[in-house]
């Protein structure tokens, strides 16, 4: 499900990874996309700043697909 917030999360992943949104295939894991653990932390901190919701350490992780992470963030910030 793509909502305005999902679009924003996707932009944050792209911005922190210095990629374009088009380069981020939601079916791939972060390892496959080449995002490291600090990229995930950077996104978590940006979500915390924009939505006021803390993302616990480890909730975003390497083996996750981007789609799974977007769904998680969508539920977390709803």
């Amino acid at each position, binding site marked *: 499900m793509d909502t305005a917030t999902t679009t924003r999360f996707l932009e944050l992943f792209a911005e922190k990874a210095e990629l374009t949104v088009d380069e981020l295939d939601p079916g791939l894991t972060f390892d496959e996309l080449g995002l490291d653990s600090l990229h995930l932390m950077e996104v*978590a901190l940006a979500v915390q*700043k924009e939505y006021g919701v803390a993302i616990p350490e480890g909730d975003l992780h390497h083996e996750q697909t981007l789609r799974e992470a977007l769904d998680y963030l969508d539920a977390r910030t709803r």
Partner: protein
Amino acid sequence: MGRAAVLTGIGSAVPDRVVTNDAFAARMDTSDEWIRSRTGIRERRLVEPGTATSDLAVLAGSRAMKSAGVADVDAVVLATTTPDHPCPATAPTVASRLGLGAVAAYDVAAVCSGFLYGLASAAGMIALGTAERVLVIAAEAFSTIIDPDDRATAPIFGDGAGAVVLAAGEQSQRGALLGFDLGSDGALADLIIVPAGGSRMKTGASPSDHFFTMRGQAVFKHAVLRMAESSRTVLARTGWPVDAVDWLVGHQANVRILRAVADQLGLPREKAFVNVERFGNTAAASIPIALDDAVAAGLVNPGDRVLLTAFGGGASWGAVTLEWPDPA
């Protein structure tokens, strides 16, 4: 408001030995690309065996006094995580070697926040009238507590020293320390720790207990959030909106932490001064080394509004504001 502590001189000193990322890649399972992408670090300066923290502190201190145009001070405050000895403090040795006579001299231990805690301590002595002029030095032979074979920490840290002279003056003067915020959270003590060697565990079960360990990802998160919050607090106390800041000179731990702090504050990333690529993380010494470097490079100029912030072991953190002074 009583009298102010005014920054009147600055100096720094780093060891001659440059160690590149490739030297670590040759020794352990890491690479130049991995180190650069995670930390921004390209190289660092490391002491030769036998060189101690006081050796670097004396050099930086004498350069700061020369920059301030002074030959004596009333006190020496030394921020360090790596004193020459567990006992006594290193500051008296440094004061003595600088030929400063029987002045007050003591160490401050706040790991990477040590320089800011040292500034606050020195400013307090000046406000009380205990001292007219204080030499604040932050110096680390940090590599002496690092396991040279630990790929998680060995490539990150560097050695070096930076120092400033603070003198009694007016709050309206350029160089006056305008605002302070300091904090700590001992519940996070295990984030950044050397487990053995202190009274809790004099001798470790294994040699590695005597080396520095760090929970990197958790440190990253807490560092970003605490430095941003402390910065907001000190800006409010100073009466500066975020866009009044000309330079954010943060603790040089990791370029990605510095960028994230700028992002949290809504400050353009270009305003975050970065030199971690050349010196690595020099713990307490990083802020005065960065300031001296930024001034020498012509980036930080007289009248610039400068925000300093740090986070480190303890956990401890802080932030300080000042307008950069005119040269002595």
